[in-house]
């Protein structure tokens, strides 16, 4: 397993480098620069001051030099300085990262638990009422835009019923103590995580249903039944374990898209995460932050895929044998 981890980490280096080079190039191609935004917002018209700012941001050097310097800085874990925030990029990202990680973790937990359970139930009750209900729900949550679902859930649970807060991560200015703090966070998290998670739950439900049905037809399952095992034991111990492999693959692939999906949910629920930071950074051409977030996303995806590989290692004995 150690070799697998080392190999994956080594493979991550060219990947992250590629992400930096590609995104740096894309940023250079975008019309308008950070200097345009800064001089516009600050109403700076003095050419000397503009040149001073250009030098301050390192924009007076050729792009290739800027890129080289940036890569060298990243190797030293220096992601640059966000002049818009008056702070180090790493610090700015660190302020937003916990919000996004919490939201991603909660949403994916909902997606996996709800989606996989629904898929298994639908497969187990094939062509029965439960299957039809779950299939209908899957189509609905897959088709419903997450921002619309978020607003609808808000109207029902916050406006009409008044059960849950409407936005933010915590009750501002409140001091509830450690347990109260956690409960406050959970209350704020329920609606955004559900809005985001149900879309992915719909995908997992479809994958899990199809996978369970496929595995249920295999010979070893028939053998397990022939041995006299109960239906539920066959389903849980033999079918589901093997049917989970595509779900795990899907999980790894979707972690990066959840990061993208959180942009919309953060806007609806005023959730202070990476998504809103990214939108602001792109709109203000705040390159250091944009690149920092891209690199971070690449690292998240690399680690997510590493986790998926490790999960495969545990779930599928054949991979363990190959390793």
């Amino acid at each position, binding site marked *: 397993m150690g070799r697998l981890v080392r190999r994956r980490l080594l493979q991550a280096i060219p990947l992250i480098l590629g992400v930096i080079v590609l995104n740096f190039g894309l940023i250079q191609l975008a019309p308008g620069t950070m200097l345009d935004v800064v001089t*516009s917002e*600050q109403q700076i018209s003095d050419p000397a001051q503009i040149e001073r700012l250009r030098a301050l941001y390192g924009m007076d050097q050729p792009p290739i030099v800027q890129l080289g310097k940036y890569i060298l800085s990243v190797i030293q874990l220096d992601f640059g300085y966000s002049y818009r925030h008056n702070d180090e990029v790493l610090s700015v990202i660190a302020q937003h990262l916990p919000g996004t990680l919490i939201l991603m973790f909660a949403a994916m937990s909902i997606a996996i638990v709800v989606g996989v359970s629904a898929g298994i139930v639908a497969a187990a009750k094939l062509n029965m009422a439960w299957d039809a209900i779950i299939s209908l729900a899957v189509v609905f949550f897959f088709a419903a835009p997450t921002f619309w679902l978020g607003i609808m859930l808000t109207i029902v649970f916050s406006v009409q019923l008044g059960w849950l807060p409407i936005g933010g991560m915590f009750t501002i*200015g409140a001091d509830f103590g450690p347990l109260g703090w956690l409960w406050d966070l959970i209350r704020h998290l329920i609606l955004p995580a559900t809005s985001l998670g149900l879309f992915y739950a719909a995908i997992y439900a479809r994958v899990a249903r199809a996978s369970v049905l496929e595995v249920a037809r295999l010979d070893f399952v028939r053998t397990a039944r022939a041995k006299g095992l109960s239906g539920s034991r066959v389903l849980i111990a033999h079918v589901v374990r093997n049917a989970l492999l595509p779900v795990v693959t899907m999980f790894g692939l979707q972690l990066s898209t959840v990061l993208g999906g959180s942009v919309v949910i953060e806007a609806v629920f*005023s959730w*202070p995460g990476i998504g809103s930071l990214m939108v602001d950074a792109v709109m*203000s051409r705040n390159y250091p932050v944009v690149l920092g977030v891209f690199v971070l996303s690449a690292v998240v995806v690399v680690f997510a895929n590493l986790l998926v590989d490790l999960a495969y290692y545990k779930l599928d004995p054949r991979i363990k044998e190959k390793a």
Partner: protein
Amino acid sequence: MKTISRRTTLLAALATTALTLLAPMGATAQEDPQPSRTLLATWGGFEPQAVFVPAGGGGSPEFTSTKILEPMLEADDELNFEPVLATAVTPSEDFMSYTITIREGVTWHDGTPFTTDDVVFNAMEYWKGVVASAAFQFLTGAEATGENEVTLTFSQPTPEFFLKSALVRVLVIPKHIYEGTEFATNEANNAPIGTGPFVFEEWVRGSHIEYSKNENYWADGQPYADGLIIRYWRDPSSRTAAFEAGEVDIGVYNPIPAADIDRLGAMDEFATSTGGYLTSAWASTIEFNSRNPIVSEVPVRQAIMHAIDKAFIADVIYSGKAVPGTSFVSSSNSKFYSDDVPQYAYDPELAAQMLDEAGYPVGDDGTRFSIELVAAGWFEENAQIGQYVKQALGDIGIEANLNVPDRPSSFRTIYGEYAYDIALSNHSAPAELVPVQTNFVTTSGILKGVPFRNASGYSNPELDAIVENLTSETDEAVRAELAHEMQTILAEDLPITILVEHTSTTVASADVKGYDHLANILANSWAGLWIDESE
């Protein structure tokens, strides 16, 4: 038939009399400001780039910084000047100098006393050097001439309304924090220290900014609210839900969609108000690039204005939350607005005829000429106006290639590269025309790369002279006449004009009090806002 007894009549009369006497008392009691809980606010825009942007930075940092930092004066809803950090601003007889008397006993939030040194520093280093307001262009010196007095001297006569308007807009920053530093990157911009009613506490980016009450505020009993929290939702519908769930007390600058403004406004729990935008009227503008030989021709511009139905833009695109523009100056500007200028009624046939006469007949391909139409991407309505104008111009045979760049690209396209023939943009103008509004049309306003200046390249010596006179003329009646002359020239030449004036609306819970008389609700300190918790 049931008859009414004498006793019933007497009781009814007594009750009516008692109610008549009690009602005003009740109303008065209700309107007396009371200390109240923390005020929860939002606004119809995005989060600021910094809590305070020394050079301005637009409405968002203006909203967040003016609760902490204060100006010398403020304007009321009749454009009278009220004292804030200055208790008096007195011109000399020749208007070549002004004496500012500063308020005594004011301290910065870190406990440092506010002194005349702060005012001298602000005048010379900040107002003149960084804000670069035209009112301070001719400022030659600032000197403490008494314990609480500072005298500003100018190289030419400076009109009183002109200077006082500037003193309403510029904030006073602490010398001991900013002296010797790069203002734009000073760390205090994200945690300002001011003299205002609220003290900065925390900024959770993507969520909210929290302020606490300034217990040492100079105005007795104020601020009434125990604190202030400005919350941000990117999605306007989420703001509507926040209002309905009671998570926001007040929102300024159209915080929710137009349909929701009408719906909430009809409910007893909410109040809507269009007051508070007197000195910051927003408008959608159309600007013709004088560098293009075709649209630089005045008859072509006039024809195009006849082809655009401004009422349609106001009614359909803005859902009635706008009114057609009639001059270069907004109609809300009671000081300088005049509609006694040439008007261009919607008449596409006349427009087509004028283009024929100007030498641009419809060609074989069905068009007269083509233009680059740029709609600035900072308001989504601009894109819709762009679509409409493209169609309207198409109806009279002008092919318009519409481009809606995002915000940074719009700055570059319109104000940096002048890469447009017709631009659809916006401006927000204070009551005083110089310099914010005149910068759009004067020759000195042509500053490549600087937004919200003269991008059309229009240069008219007659107009420049009028603006110069506006800068130095001290008789307000003469200034109003000069402003009228300016509007007439601009209505004829049409380098830039207003398509529609936005009707900005404040939405608030019915129990929020103290905001409906303000001239500029966004830039007010909100010391006088409170929540009636008796209901």
